[in-house]
């Protein structure tokens, strides 16, 4: 494995962080009983993944970066008072939230209301166990990493519903039901999109997917642009981010299932909005954008830096759409999921399966992927526009300027305005 990287086996070589963990574990195996190394290894993985990569990303890029960037998009400065350049703002927010009184309404279910944010944190933390940061740097390289992500993504939906129910508030319940309806709709499209990816890589493990992309020297986003777009929109919907954030910003005008939450419980929901977005961005970078590989650059640059950069780039696109686009209505979202994305994902699957069959049956060489990539990109553009037309969506017929008349008169029917008057 070290042949692909210039990183050496010395413990101080930071380009391959597994050197450090291997040294620590070897040391522990020498001095202590067997089970000590066994227990410590996931702890090291946790410390490395979460505290070195995730938490700083979450604090700086997430809370700070998001607020500064959205502030700049809205032509205002973001938070810049606390600490130098406002970098300590997330810490200040956390302290403020922790000292607030977390009010529980009287008729609400206290223990369930307490448990819901705890479960909601699950995906933001658990997903990082399977993301590969480098050729040797993954906490748990399970052979079903992709399905693990899907399983973990099912948990916050449940948590949101339980949160809405236990608040003993009519409107929270409404918001919670909307969240669940939206999440299960987009999950179907998400799974079908990811299935197309798996058809090519023939493996469900995330490390295997990255290896496949590196071996074939192509990123899956070029090979399957339709799947990438479906993943982006579906992940955005699962995360309840604008333009699909009906759950937390509009349901009956109060905050939906979050209404009765205050203090750190609300802080957890809000923080995990960002944490889960980062996790989804990391997963998307791994599966579609090539993970820790960059067409050979990973020999010089540490691979975990490459992955972190890609995650932040993906997350920046999330922030960008959030700052710009208005929100869609619930029925429009449902129509988008079931009528538009699901058939597109199914068509994508069909095309990809045909391509792969042809590839392996006809024993074509590996260079054919570039042909497939070009064909897929063209097909994706065609399908995205064409399917919308088939569904009856005509975007250009809306006049965006009003008519101008010179005289005040009565009603002017559309088309009769030249000249104005009665």
């Amino acid at each position: 494995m070290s042949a692909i990287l210039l990183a050496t086996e010395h413990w101080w070589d930071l380009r391959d962080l597994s050197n450090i963990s291997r040294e620590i574990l070897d040391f522990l195996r020498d001095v202590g009983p067997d089970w000590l190394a066994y227990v410590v290894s996931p702890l090291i993985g946790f410390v490395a993944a979460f505290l070195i990569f995730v938490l700083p990303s979450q604090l700086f890029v997430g809370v700070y970066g998001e607020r500064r960037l959205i502030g700049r998009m809205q032509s205002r400065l973001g938070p810049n008072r606390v600490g130098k350049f406002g970098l300590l703002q997330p810490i200040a927010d956390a302290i403020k939230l922790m000292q607030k009184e977390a009010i529980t309404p009287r008729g609400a279910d206290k223990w369930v209301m307490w448990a819901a944010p705890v479960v909601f944190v699950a995906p933001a933390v658990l997903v990082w166990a399977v993301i590969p940061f480098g050729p040797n740097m993954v906490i748990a390289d399970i052979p079903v990493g992709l399905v693990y992500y899907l399983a973990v993504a099912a948990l916050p939906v449940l948590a949101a519903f339980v949160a809405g129910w236990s608040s003993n508030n009519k409107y929270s319940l409404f918001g919670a039901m909307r969240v669940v309806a939206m999440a299960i709709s987009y999950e179907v499209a998400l799974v079908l999109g990811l299935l197309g990816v798996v058809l090519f890589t023939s493996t469900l493990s995330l490390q295997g997917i990255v290896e496949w992309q590196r071996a074939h020297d192509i990123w899956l986003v070029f090979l399957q642009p339709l799947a990438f777009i479906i993943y982006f929109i579906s992940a955005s919907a699962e995360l309840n981010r604008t333009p699909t954030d009906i759950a937390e910003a509009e349901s009956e005008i109060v905050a939906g299932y979050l209404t009765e939450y205050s203090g750190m419980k609300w802080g957890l929901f809000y923080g995990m909005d960002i944490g889960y977005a980062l996790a989804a961005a990391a997963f998307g970078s791994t599966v579609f954008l090539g993970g820790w590989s960059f067409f050979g650059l990973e020999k010089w640059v540490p691979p975990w830096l490459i992955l972190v950069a890609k995650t932040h780039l993906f997350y920046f696109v999330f922030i960008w759409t959030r700052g710009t686009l208005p929100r869609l209505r619930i029925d429009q979202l449902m129509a988008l999921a079931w009528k538009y994305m699901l058939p597109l994902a199914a068509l994508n699957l069909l095309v990809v399966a045909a391509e792969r069959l042809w590839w392996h049956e006809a024993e074509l060489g590996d260079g054919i992927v570039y042909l497939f990539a070009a064909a897929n990109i063209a097909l994706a553009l065609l399908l995205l526009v064409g399917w919308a037309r088939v569904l009856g969506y005509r975007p250009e017929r809306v006049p965006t300027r009003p008519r101008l008349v010179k005289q005040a008169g009565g009603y002017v029917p559309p088309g009769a305005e030249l000249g104005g008057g009665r």
Partner: protein
Amino acid sequence: MIEGAGPVAAFWGLSVLTLAAAGGVIVSRNLFHAVLFLILVFLGIAGFFLLLSADFLAMAQIIIYVGAIAVLILFAIVLTPRASRDNGETRMAPAALVVAIGVAGLLIPAIADTDWRTLASAPALPLADLGRELLGTWVLPFQLASVLLTAALVGAVMLVRSPREEQEELEEEERR
């Protein structure tokens, strides 16, 4: 089977958790809490699958049972009127007890008499083989299951449409 102290501890921990949660399902008064305990049971069973190295089944268990079926049951509870949400005393308690004793009487001797043996070298079923079997040997039941699910989906949508909506859709069709 994985050997070692870790899996054994995990097994006992999961057993306690699952059985306690199952007990919670039966004992808890509030129907909503009962469903939450049921979700814990599902998670425990997923843990058991992991212990048996059936990783895909564990993930599938979570996605299907916790992600979909539990949510379905929760929705069903939301739609039941408040009065029937009490999980307490019912008139069926004696009948349920009889059935439970009968089933236990069947299962416990069966479990006790079986010669449980762990295979010396049981290979974990690789996922590729599972897929090949499902779409090769067992493709007919697979397709029948999907037809059944589609029928259920269509039926649910038909059931939920109110007569007013049907009227509106008929009018739209005529207009077009």
